[in-house]
């Protein structure tokens, strides 16, 4: 069930307030995006860019959490599912940008030893969109004192369907095959969704509250970048880099 | 009891059927239940299904299987002949007919394997039909009902598969009897239990096939 902002004067504030949580999430995602490259930290080109968003952002569905008071307590206003994270600066968050083609077929990129973390807090996944390398550890944390079920039925990866009944539980899993996106859901709380981009290389990032991304360490070559969004699908861009320069590639999603 | 003179009573040393034969009859009773489960499920699924069933003769070739059925019936007959031969004391005739039966059974299994390969090439698999196969086209143009193809494949392969497995077991055990009992001349008109017991099994398998052929291929 979702709140109609026109009818609800506090709607604007509400959106702002709830986006605060998401800014954090976005930054976290970015931070992770960087840490991912720990493994393959080599000099190379950088591709940065903005993911623009034009048109009126649709209202995000608000969530009736009355059945989980312990989660509801973590919010000051009616929580919403961040399907569309429209930033104030006209950009779009939770977009996963990655190098789709152009890398040498034989190139091997070791998976970083630092794990990627996804946290379940307030019956929401933090972050909602994240990238991970094949073979890299994914730490699944539960910060809620109640059951969460983590279910990711990838097509290429072994199905992941586990549960964490108590707070503070941590489960570590890895993925064996590249897959974008790998949708994660919680069957106990229908509104909980997250999207993981599993890639064999470290050249990916997801946008946050600023709507920007930056992919570094690219060897010389011509690449097709793809930007993926759960609602608005994919956009592609092509960049050619020398191996030491910095290029920009922007994407634009339009509200439907 | 202990008081009055107890009357004479029969000793009741069991019935006039020797153990192996009795055992086989009992075993066949359980086999009946096994196939009843498979066939029963088929009937329930087929007539409980929404949308009609694939018409006979489109997916499965009736001609080949009809010939196969004929083959199996013949092998049943040759089994009877082998049994009669040893009973009347002609061990060589018995060996010949037993061999015929083995060949008949083996041929049946061979043809069934050929049929399976052929069907899978055409895209008929236990889960229904494979994409882009000849069968998929037939489903496209409505010759075959898409809704029930899954059940069709499931039931067909399970039932015929397990029958085939039973035939194979029969052939193997007959081969064993042929090589280690019949050829060394262990069977006499007084003792030919093996032949009789395997014969019972063989006729049962044959009977099951006639039912399967009718309900899976013809109806």
């Amino acid at each position: 069930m979702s709140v109609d902002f026109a009818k609800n004067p506090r709607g604007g504030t509400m959106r702002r307030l709830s986006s605060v949580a998401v800014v954090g999430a976005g930054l976290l995602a970015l931070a992770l995006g960087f840490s991912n490259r720990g493994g393959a930290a080599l000099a190379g080109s950088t591709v940065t860019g903005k993911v623009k968003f034009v048109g009126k952002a649709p209202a995000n569905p608000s969530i009736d959490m009355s059945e989980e008071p312990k989660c509801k307590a973590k919010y000051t206003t009616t929580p919403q599912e961040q399907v569309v994270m429209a930033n104030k600066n006209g950009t779009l968050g939770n977009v996963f940008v990655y190098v789709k083609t152009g890398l040498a077929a034989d190139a091997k990129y070791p998976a970083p030893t630092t794990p990627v973390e996804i946290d379940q807090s307030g019956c929401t996944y933090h972050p909602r969109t994240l990238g991970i390398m094949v073979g890299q550890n994914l730490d699944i944390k539960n910060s809620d004192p109640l059951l969460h079920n983590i279910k990711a039925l990838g097509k290429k990866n072994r199905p992941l369907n586990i549960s964490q009944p108590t707070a503070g539980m941590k489960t570590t899993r890895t993925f064996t095959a590249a897959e974008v996106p790998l949708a994660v859901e919680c069957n106990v709380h229908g509104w909980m969704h997250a999207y993981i981009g599993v890639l064999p290389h470290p050249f990916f990032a997801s946008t946050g509250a600023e709507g920007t991304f930056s992919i570094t360490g690219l060897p010389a070559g011509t690449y097709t970048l793809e930007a993926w969004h759960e609602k608005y699908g994919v956009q592609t861009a092509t960049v050619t880099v020398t191996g030491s320069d910095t290029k920009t590639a922007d994407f634009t999603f339009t509200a439907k | 009891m202990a008081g009055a003179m107890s009357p004479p009573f029969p000793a009741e040393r069991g019935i006039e059927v020797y153990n192996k034969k009795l055992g086989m009859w009992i075993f066949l009773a359980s086999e009946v239940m096994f196939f009843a489960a498979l066939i029963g499920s088929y009937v329930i699924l087929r007539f409980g299904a929404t949308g009609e069933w694939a018409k006979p003769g489109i997916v499965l070739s009736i001609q080949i299987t009809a010939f196969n059925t004929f083959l199996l019936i013949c092998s049943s007959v040759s089994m009877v002949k082998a049994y009669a031969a040893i009973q009347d004391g002609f061990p060589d005739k018995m060996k010949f007919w037993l061999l015929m039966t083995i060949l008949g059974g083996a041929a049946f299994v061979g043809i069934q394997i050929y049929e399976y390969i052929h069907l899978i090439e055409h895209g008929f698999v236990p889960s229904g039909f494979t994409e882009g196969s000849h069968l998929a086209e037939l489903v496209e143009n409505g010759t075959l009902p898409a809704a029930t193809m899954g059940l069709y494949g499931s039931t067909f392969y399970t039932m015929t598969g397990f029958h085939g497995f039973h035939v194979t077991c029969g052939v193997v055990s007959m081969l064993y009897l042929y090589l280690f009992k019949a050829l060394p001349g262990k069977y006499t008109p007084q003792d030919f239990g093996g032949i009789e017991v395997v014969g019972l099994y063989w006729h049962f398998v044959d009977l099951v096939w006639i039912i399967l052929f009718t309900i899976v291929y013809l109806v």
Partner: protein
Amino acid sequence: MHWWLPPQGSTFAQPIDTMFTWILVITGITFVLVEVGLVWFIFAYRERPGRKAFYTHGSTSAEVIWTAIPAVTMVILGLMSNGLWVKIKGRNSVPANAYPIGVYAKQFEWYFTYPGADGKLGRVSPSLVDKNSNPTGRDPADPAGTDDIIVRNQLHLPVNRPVVAILTAEDVIHSFYVPEFRVRQDVVPGMEIKSWFEATVPGSYEVGCSQLCGLGHYKMRAQVTVHTQADYHAWLQERTAKAQGEPTS
């Protein structure tokens, strides 16, 4: 907490409890008969020097008695419960004026669909289910469905009005169970099962899934609220207003 059966919350509760009590009386008598008999025998006939057991192979008359009595009792019991069974679950037991509520079960949630102004539920079909936008797979083509309201894990009922739950499941078998109503019905994927009941006491209860449905089985719980007719309509209005052309989640 109730040391006996749960409080009676529907029209079924009273007759079912009576039935239960009757069986308890019958079985209770038998129970006492057997156990007391055993204890008595244990003391009366314990081995003592010089005692010899009474040699008998049985008594036909006694056996006839203790065959006939249970037989008759069981037949009576059968007739009694069958009458009630037909009223509750019989083919045509659902009252004509029953208020329809769609109950859609999935691992591990309940989705309740309430008819809008038209009092009719729209068509649903599993093929249309979309996890985010259309959790119950309602058919947009059906006008009756456009004003339906879908609420997650909250069952709201008008008091003293027969309600027919139209049960469908997405994935595995679940079971719709409200102890206070004494109502239980499995929800089977691929089947549409109607189960009716009439709540008699306003208040809040719980729906539990009582058929093992996966690792979240124990969390598959929904809140039941029985309103007075007026409150119910108020609630429905409020929900309708909320739901106006907005995505549901």
